[in-house]
């Protein structure tokens, strides 16, 4: 995790610092420009004017993993792609989050039974924070996923556990 985490002794009251850090983190989750298949169209729709992901501070789609906090795995992950996906995830700076969007990313979806080349769930490759089911999910559902991620971020603490 980030440098500041885990350097304070347990018992030291850091709730206000926590609150400020989490507030700034969860209001600026920059996603990576990373759409693999058709769910990416819904992700683009979420980023466009009508649904406007900028209202959550997540509108800046970064073109490099170094600047991104969130990887929205929007689409089918093949075995060939899994290697690249893992590498991109490892290039992202801490703290990093992953949303598995759509049936394909969660479990293989329509390729679950007969797909010879599809990873059955992206959680085998990278740790997933929020699952957004749907085929594809509505843009509102992706916004809900980002709000669930914000809820998760707001429970973080920098104190030693």
């Amino acid at each position: 995790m980030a440098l500041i985490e885990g350097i304070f002794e347990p018992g030291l009251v850091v709730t206000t610092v926590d609150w400020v850090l989490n507030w700034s983190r969860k209001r600026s989750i920059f996603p990576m420009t990373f759409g693999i298949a058709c769910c990416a169209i819904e992700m683009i729709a979420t980023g466009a004017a009508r649904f406007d992901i900028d209202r959550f501070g997540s509108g800046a789609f970064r073109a490099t993993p170094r600047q991104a906090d969130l990887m929205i795995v929007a689409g089918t992950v093949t075995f060939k792609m899994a290697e690249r996906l893992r590498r991109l995830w490892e290039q992202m700076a801490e703290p990093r989050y992953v949303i598995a969007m759509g049936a394909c990313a969660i479990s293989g979806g329509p390729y679950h039974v007969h797909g010879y080349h599809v990873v059955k769930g992206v959680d085998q490759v990278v740790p997933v924070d929020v699952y957004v089911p749907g085929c594809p999910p509505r843009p509102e559902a992706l916004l809900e996923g980002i709000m669930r991620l914000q809820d998760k971020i707001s429970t973080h603490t920098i104190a030693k556990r």
Partner: protein
Amino acid sequence: MTPSDIIAFLQQHHAESVVSAVADGPYPHALVKAEGLAAVAAFLKTQPRLRFDLLRCISAIDWPAKNNIELAYDVISTSLGHAFAIKVVVDRADPRVESVSTVWPAAEWHEREAFDLMGVEFLHHPDLRRILMPEDWPGHPLRKDYQDIVEYRGLKFNP
């Protein structure tokens, strides 16, 4: 030209290569011997009355019961406005056929795909590598007797 004209023309010039032909029906085509494919392809492309300048698709069909793989080359002529297809049958155990990428450059990626998913080897192809699957993938997935892998680089196929 109508399909029957094309077939007659083809049989006139390449009688030794054409095995059989279907002129009517939804899919007029000629079955060509594998050895004569390159000559027939060049003939279809360059002959002024045919001028098949566009290769639309190469389809590979696996027939385990007949123990062969069928390749269908769909060609159309953009200038003369007629369409035709030629088929080649190769052995399933050792599928080899001459590449037509020198005649139609578009065939290069189609042949790579047929090699990747069906395992047909195209002789004298400039760059015959897998195009869709990873380089170290075992087997050819669209064969009827293909067995799903158990694990690929630590990723379980059925977790």
